[in-house]
């Protein structure tokens, strides 16, 4: 990561600590993406095998669900760890053809910048084909160590289906509590 990007990232971290973190980052993220497209956090840049991802941009088509589901800073991905199914033939909430959605997973809470509300997001993995290899993202908001498994994104949640991991979705389960 370039020195410029790291410097920008440190500035945004310090600012974020001093404000309501999720809300501020959400707004700042949208500004930055519009202006200079610098990713906020080093781990938040989508990468594919061999370098940064360059998949075609996407939109959900729904103004209430803003952002690009093929990038790490799409609002639902605040706790995602893995390849984005949106880049793999699926969408942010469906699996690629020929894979199976694992019923067990961890959940996080992310803030939708369109309405300012928190949503409970379930990061169901799609299983049965090998690593998709596109758009790898790792964000760890609300992540806890593995001995609290329901809050951990390091686990390979392909269980009950085949053990082989392809990509991760971010399904809305419902609204979370107000901040």
């Amino acid at each position, binding site marked *: 990561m370039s020195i410029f990007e790291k410097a920008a990232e440190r500035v945004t971290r310090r600012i974020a600590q001093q404000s309501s973190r999720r809300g501020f980052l959400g707004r700042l993220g949208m500004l930055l993406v519009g202006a200079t497209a610098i990713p906020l956090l080093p*781990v938040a840049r989508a990468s594919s095998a061999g370098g940064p991802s360059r998949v075609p941009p996407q939109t959900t088509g729904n103004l209430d669900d803003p952002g690009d589901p093929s990038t790490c800073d799409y609002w639902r991905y605040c706790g995602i760890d893995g390849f984005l199914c949106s880049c793999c033939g699926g969408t942010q909430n469906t699996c690629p053809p020929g894979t199976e959605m694992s019923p067990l997973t961890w959940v996080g809470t992310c803030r939708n910048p369109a309405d300012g509300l928190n949503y409970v997001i379930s990061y169901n993995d799609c299983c049965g084909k090998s*690593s998709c290899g596109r758009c790898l993202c790792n964000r760890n908001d*609300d992540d*806890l160590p593995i*001995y609290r*498994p329901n809050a951990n994104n390091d686990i390979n949640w392909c*269980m009950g289906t*085949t*053990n082989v*991991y392809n990509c991760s979705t971010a399904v809305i389960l419902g609204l979370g509590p107000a901040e």
Partner: protein
Amino acid sequence: MKPLTLVLSLLALLVSATVLHADDVAEPMGVIQQLPAIYPDHWMMIHDISFFHMSEGEVLVVDPLATTQPTQYKGMMTASFIGAYQRGRIRGEHYVVETFTSRGTRGGERTDVVTIYDNAGLKVKGEVIIPAKRMTGMPKPIAIGMSPDERLLMVYNFTPAQSVSIVDLESRSFIAEVPTPGCGFVIPTGQRSFFSICANGSLRTTHLDQAGKPASSEQTDKLFDVDVDPVFEAFGLSDGVAHFPTFQGRVLPINLTGESPVSGEPWWLTETSERAWRPAGVRPVITDANGVGYFLMQPDGAEGTHKNGGSEVWVFDMKSHERKTRLVLKNWGLTLGTSGRGENRLLAVTNDQMKVDIYRLPGGEFVHTLGIEAATPLVVHGAH
């Protein structure tokens, strides 16, 4: 692929050359390199978890003080599907816990095994089939453990039911699967016990008999608040005490010398003015062969940054809890490893370019960046 006639003519040439020259140049075929039966203690085993091709994970045997890639790279073992690695000093063996599926990378019937390699030949000497339940996911140092006499190997299972599989490394057989409901991981304590960390911040201890079969278990009180300041899934062992760093920068010491773990008073890595500094990374703490502690620290810690790694390594006397020095890393570090004894103590830091930087300990002098190519070398083990 050369045509047959060309091969035959080359062979004829070779044969005639052999006949004509007494000091013939023909070389022997089938020569396989061997490694020493006992590795120099500064050698490292670098685990590439191969996140983009998980079935092709590898553990590389490396001399980190050699100066070129070919002299650094000694050999490799496969570690399929983000395997777990354990060093076997007593028998001169490597233990790789891995997962296979009958139809290759697209699934089929799953088989989990403990694969046993020898030091010198890096050949598969044996395997022990264990219940196909081990936790698969990002590598955690405490997902695997060994009794101090290296007789028993213990593997953490998550299906999501939680349990631990016990393997006898001498008879190379599976002994038992011990349920640990609500608690994860396996940290050996005493001679024949281990504890697991529970979701409510307590510890659950399992006592085994000499053969490795479960005998009894008990639970401690809650030792830390999982929601407020949880311990990392990694510890540094110094003088029989396991030091677990927490997300916010404390250290929870747990004495492992007895059959039941005894927790001590937590202490802070940072002064009050420094609390923005926090430990972070895949493995944010190691201790060297002298018991000195090293913590990977990031300057702007906050919610969600616990896996980011850090820019400095802070060196601590683990008895007095005194910080000795702060090492500024050449490159941002993601995880720590160590090897060597005495003057040859080394620190390995996997950096954000997925290369491994080597420093001398305890002074922190940068040696070099290894020339080894690996996709995601996120765990480094020492041969010491």
